């Protein structure tokens, strides 16, 4: 905020009952003899017609003020969990599509199903509209509110989100090769849930 406007606002605030600002911004001012100037100067603030305090008071105790920096350990823990998920998905993506055969495993002849996809196993829905909308909303809140968060917290959140996104990408790539793999589907769903949880947590921190 520029000093000139800060000064105007502060001056306005020093006069209870007047408008907060004290006139047009400097980049496109009204003429000194413009009747709008007088009308703006005559604007006054009026309280609401109903008592708003009870509704505010009820909401105060739903979310107590809290320190953002206190949540860094939680975010660090989340990062560790996400890394574990990512590593698991990466391993699955690189591992053979069938379970490993150990020396103790008896080898049996089984009939392979026709075609590459088992139709009885549904692939996780990547394009779930509600999920995408929720993620988009939360990301928007985070963009809007990010400035209110500690920069270190923002950095941790962004790093976690990148890790989850990488895990999601790897899971999707692996599922392209083996769409019916229930294990990969489960990990994909888990990564999606973690992303949503992390975004909700971050949006909550930012006050959104």
């Amino acid at each position, binding site marked *: *905020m*520029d000093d000139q*406007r*800060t000064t*105007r*606002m*502060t001056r306005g*605030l020093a006069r*209870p*009952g007047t*408008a*907060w*600002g*004290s*006139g*047009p*911004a*400097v*980049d*496109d001012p*009204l003429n000194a003899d*413009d*009747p*709008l100037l*007088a*009308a*703006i100067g*005559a*604007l*006054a*603030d*009026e*309280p*609401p017609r*109903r008592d*708003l*305090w009870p*509704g*505010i*008071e009820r*909401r*105060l105790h739903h*979310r*107590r*003020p*809290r*320190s953002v920096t206190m949540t860094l350990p939680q975010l660090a823990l989340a990062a560790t969990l996400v890394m574990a998920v990512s590593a698991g998905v990466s391993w699955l993506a690189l591992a053979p599509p069938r379970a490993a055969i150990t020396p103790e495993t008896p080898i049996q002849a089984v009939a392979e199903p026709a075609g590459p996809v088992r139709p009885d196993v549904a692939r996780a829905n990547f394009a779930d509209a509600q999920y995408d909308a929720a993620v988009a*909303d939360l990301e*928007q*809140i985070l963009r*809007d*509110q990010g400035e*209110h968060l500690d920069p270190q917290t923002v950095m941790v959140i962004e790093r976690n989100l990148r890790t989850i996104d990488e895990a999601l990408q790897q899971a999707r790539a692996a599922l392209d090769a083996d769409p019916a793999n229930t294990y990969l589907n489960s990990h994909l769903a888990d990564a999606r849930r973690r992303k949503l949880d992390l975004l909700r947590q971050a949006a909550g921190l930012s*006050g*959104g």
Partner: protein
Amino acid sequence: MPVDDVVLAANGDTAAFERVYHAYLPRVHGLARRMAGPEAADELTQDVFVRVWQKLATFRGDSAFGTWLHRLAVNVIVERFRRLGTARRRFLDDGEATLELAHAPARSRPDLRMDLQAALDTLPEGARTVFVMHDVEGFRHDEIAQMLEVSPGTSKSQLHRARHILKAALGARK
């Protein structure tokens, strides 16, 4: 208002926060009403004070409390526009209504302040928001454009539309 109330409220004292609320209520409500209209003003005012309560611990006293509160209130109101997905629509939908309002017959009111407030309430939403932010609250076009996610040119054109309508309305009421 004693500065102590802000400190007490920041430490969780709701009685002190209620005193802060009463001290700033008319100004927050006036801002919300001018920016968002009378229908949304009450709810937005409540949203602002809830946000103030949540953020009080971050107020460091680098600026006057009222200045900090003002900025936060504007942010809460603009966020509401964005969250409801109305930020862009408020500007895109204004179009022809502006011209109709400019020629609408005005009611006779003797009070200049009431004239402007009443005229503000009839403005298209986008024009009203820009007018209040620029001419009343003192934000620059580039700041308005950034907050409302529109171009500075849109902010300028909405401001000039608003001024045109308001001057016509005030002139008709003389």
